[in-house]
């Protein structure tokens, strides 16, 4: 084979694993992209910021929604359905959970914000969704959220929906194995 041909071949052969790696790199890239743009309504934890706190905020409403993903028997609901807040101020809210089963269970709440362009302006100082919840049989708890909506929220948005879906992740490691046992028992 000619020298140039070998060079072309090597370039292409190197390109393949690079593109394979690029496929995987899309995962963190997507997360970063989402964090910046709020594209998928995901909200990440943010530090307390003095700058965001202002006095000239406007009044908006936050609507809380709770959803149980399949196979999740816990009781899970917001303490208040709707909360009136001021932009540029920290506010606290709570969600009520109860493990209604007779087993110790672990849960993970997954947040979602709508409209999605509000997500970038929603700063969560504290949220139960940043960690897993482990509850004993019958145990109940009030889960806290502490958040601020920045003053830069587009003015046409007067109502933000903050939704949490709670997933049962008790058997998370075993799930993969259980998955292929399609039979019920």
């Amino acid at each position, binding site marked *: 084979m000619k020298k140039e041909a070998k060079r072309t071949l090597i370039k292409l052969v190197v390109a393949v694993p690079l593109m394979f790696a690029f496929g995987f790199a899309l995962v963190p890239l997507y997360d970063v992209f989402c964090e910046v743009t709020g594209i998928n309504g995901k909200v990440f934890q943010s530090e307390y910021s003095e700058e965001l706190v202002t006095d000239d905020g406007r009044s908006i409403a936050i609507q809380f929604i709770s*959803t149980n993903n399949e196979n*999740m*028997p816990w009781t899970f609901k917001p303490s208040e359905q709707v909360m009136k807040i001021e932009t540029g101020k920290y506010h606290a809210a709570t969600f009520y959970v109860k493990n209604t089963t007779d087993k110790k269970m672990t849960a993970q709440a997954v947040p*979602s914000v709508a409209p999605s362009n509000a997500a970038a302006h929603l700063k969560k100082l504290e949220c139960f969704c940043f960690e897993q919840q482990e509850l004993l049989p019958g145990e109940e708890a009030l889960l806290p959220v502490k958040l601020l909506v920045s003053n830069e929220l587009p003015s*046409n948005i007067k109502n933000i929906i903050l*939704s949490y879906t709670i997933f049962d992740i008790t058997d998370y490691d075993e799930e993969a194995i259980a998955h292929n046992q*399609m*039979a*019920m028992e």
Partner: protein
Amino acid sequence: MLLNLFNKTKRNIFLLALFLLVSPFMHADWFALNMTRGSTDISNEVFELHMLIFWICVAIGVVVFSVMFYSMWAHTKEKNPVPAKFHENHKLEIAWTIIPFLILIAMAVPASKTLVKIYDDEAGDINIQVTGYQWKWQYRYLEDDVSFFSNLSTDLDEIYNLVPKGENYLQEVDEMVVIPAGKKVRFLITANDVIHSWWLPAFAIKQDAIPGFVNTAWTIVDEPGIYRGKCTELCGKNHGFMPIVVKVVEQDEYDDWVFTKKQEAIKLAELTTKEWTTAELIERGESIYEVNCVACHQTSGQGITGIFPALAGSDIVMNNKDRNIEILMEGVQGAAMNSFSYLSEVELAAVITYTRQSWGNAEKGDGEIVIPKDIVDYKEPKI
């Protein structure tokens, strides 16, 4: 020329085949040719947009194809034995790059404007959370604490061609979403298991329902009536069998409906404390089984070998009441069996009792029934 290939009989066969091919066109429903005009301002605008682009595309097609067909007719080897020599023309090439570009802008500008209107996101007068399940929709009225499931109500016998199909075949549900006319209704769309998609053509709303995420869509419908839609994201076996039906009513009728729904909820709570007989439970359980269980476990209780286990003759269903309740409450990890804990206590007790009493299970097993109280007890913490 083509027909010359055949002798007379073959020609007759050919004509018969042609007739068979064409005849369905004659019976075809000519109304089902185009997008239906919408019922809201937005959906009307989308319809107009659709027609605008459609006619632009037709115009482009007519221009391009007429030049081409003219050439095919006029520039055959017979008529034009010496081909022309040209093979480029810069002015022409620039023109047919720039003109399409301008046409595209003419299409994209109104489209972008409509899109901005669709995205105008303000709170609705009424907020309804729509959750896609395999294979039904749940609706939760956030302000009124009303919540219910909406299942396909078409009979299986119609689907399997045993009886004639009704007018609203596959477009009917046991419980419609009711919304008031003239009010801004916002749908908060999510899913419980896989991705579904909530489509209501008359409102020009199509939003994917994604587990863990909430998408929004809104509408204002002025005209009372019944509007039908469908799931548009492949979500498994019964993807084609989870329609959407929205009933738009006047405000006072809507208020009545909400009131009735709330009363029903209270009544249901009372039911759980009532004394239930086995016969009552079986009767109620059968209808619940038909809605929720029959797709997988089959009417015969035999399931489908290798995929959905049989309930008839199952040891759990015959002899293990506690595990039986647990499976319905928790589902089975990693299997197709989901949790049915969203059913009411009465419904759960009834359907479990039905399976424990049917297909000879009662005779072969312990024959125990499950009453609503058992479910309430199960839900109580046991420390």
